[in-house]
């Protein structure tokens, strides 16, 4: 899997794509693969305040429940309502199936996140343990 280089990644397997002071967030292909068939995505409401590193929602597969962690702090401006009815889209296209958009509180939050190359290395180690 080639991870898109137009965004950054967390060690909890979220991606964040920044455009000015707004950002789009989703989970990575590695995350969807580890979870298996995704049947449920729960995201916060528009207007919710996210704190970097804290949980902001849940993804469930048939077998597993997994928390979503905010890659950065900010305010939710839009959620992908499509995923409430078609959560399996995350399996078929994780990097295209965004979960929410937010305005960033502190763009410096992103400094510690991984590049595509670093994330790829990170998951290779995690998968190969």
């Amino acid at each position, binding site marked *: 899997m080639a991870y898109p280089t137009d965004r950054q990644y967390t060690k909890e397997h979220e991606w964040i794509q920044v455009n000015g002071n707004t950002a789009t967030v989703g989970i990575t292909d590695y995350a969807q693969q580890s979870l298996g*068939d995704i049947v449920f995505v729960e995201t916060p409401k528009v207007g919710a305040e996210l704190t970097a590193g804290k949980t902001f929602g849940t993804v469930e597969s048939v077998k597993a*429940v997994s928390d979503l962690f905010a890659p950065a702090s900010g305010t939710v401006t839009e959620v992908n309502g499509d995923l409430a009815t078609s959560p399996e889209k995350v399996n078929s296209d994780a990097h295209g199936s965004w979960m929410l958009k937010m305005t960033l509180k502190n763009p410096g939050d992103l400094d510690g996140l991984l590049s595509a190359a670093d994330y790829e290395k990170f998951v290779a180690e995690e998968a190969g343990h």
Partner: protein
Amino acid sequence: MSSVEAPTIRKTALNAVHRQMGAKMVEFSGWDMPVEYPAAIGCGIINEHMAVRTGVGIFDVSHMGDIRLAGPQALAAVQHISMNDASKLAIGQAQYSALLYPAGTFVDDVIVHRLGEDEYLLVINAGTREKDFNWVRDNTRDFDCAVENLSDDYTQIAIQGPKAVNLLQKLTDADLSAVKFYWVTRGLILLAKKSMRRFLQNTLIARTGYTAEDGFEIYVPSDEPTSTWVWNRILEVGKELGVIPCGLGARNTLRLEGKLPLYGHEISDTINVWEAGLDRFCKMDKPEFVGRAALEKAKAAGVKRTLVGLEMTERGIARDGYKVLDPGGREIGYVTSGSPAPFLKKNIALAYVPVEFGAVGTALKVEIRGQGAGAVVVPTPFYKRPKKA
């Protein structure tokens, strides 16, 4: 005979095959088992589940244990340690039953197969193998009957689904149409085309399973080459029937739709037969068996909690261990198993609740991440396979 329990995780003879196929492996009851196979080969829990409901899927269930009882008093021994009535079994017939503690709670649930005049095979759960064997041995000392642990002798492969009979018939000379559900037979398993004259002789074939679907479980020698050969051969001849390998994930959702109990969830050493609703497999007209006296008392005293089927009426998935609440939000019970049901396309659960909340149609709640989500008590099993015309 005694065995020292190895601290390391155990592997079935098919472990390398599962890994080669790219299965996601998990630890289950001390075993390294496939939970699901990759989407790239048409698998994943939902596809595997659907294959068994509509076609055929195969499972490595070699982690299950096997105990053989044989000798002049084998029947008397089986009658003493199990709650169903094994005297009703013809040779070649099997029954669902359970081993009970004196308190009427569960050591384990088992399938009792009568293999010969004085020969019985108990198929038991992976997580309770050692406990079960010790318990059976200790409780049959007074009977003229040998007790053997055959758990490591067999690779057990389950072939499940409406097309299981078509698949397996390609591989055996046994007439499977003559084998009814919960009966066993023996036959050749062809390992290659007939002309090559390569086969396993006298293989035990049982029309049993844990999927609430038609199907078979075959018991082949547990050496790695034979096990691998049989597994691959089944996949090869089953290709035209759409067979796929299935893992423990689908095994769990399939058995949940069929309300088949899982040890440590619906049944355990703190849950009795009446609570679990397994009355019809417990023959109180048998004069004696371990647990009987306590069960008689428990029945007279009245059953306080009961296992119910729940269907979520609001968004959310009930999971094992979640709290069940009454409509006012008071905690009244807990979920023993909960999951999305891939065939029924609903979120379902089994739960213990006080009997007064057990009636079909009762509105309850399941606490999911701190919030009560609506659920309703529904008839069980959630899924019943269609009767053959």
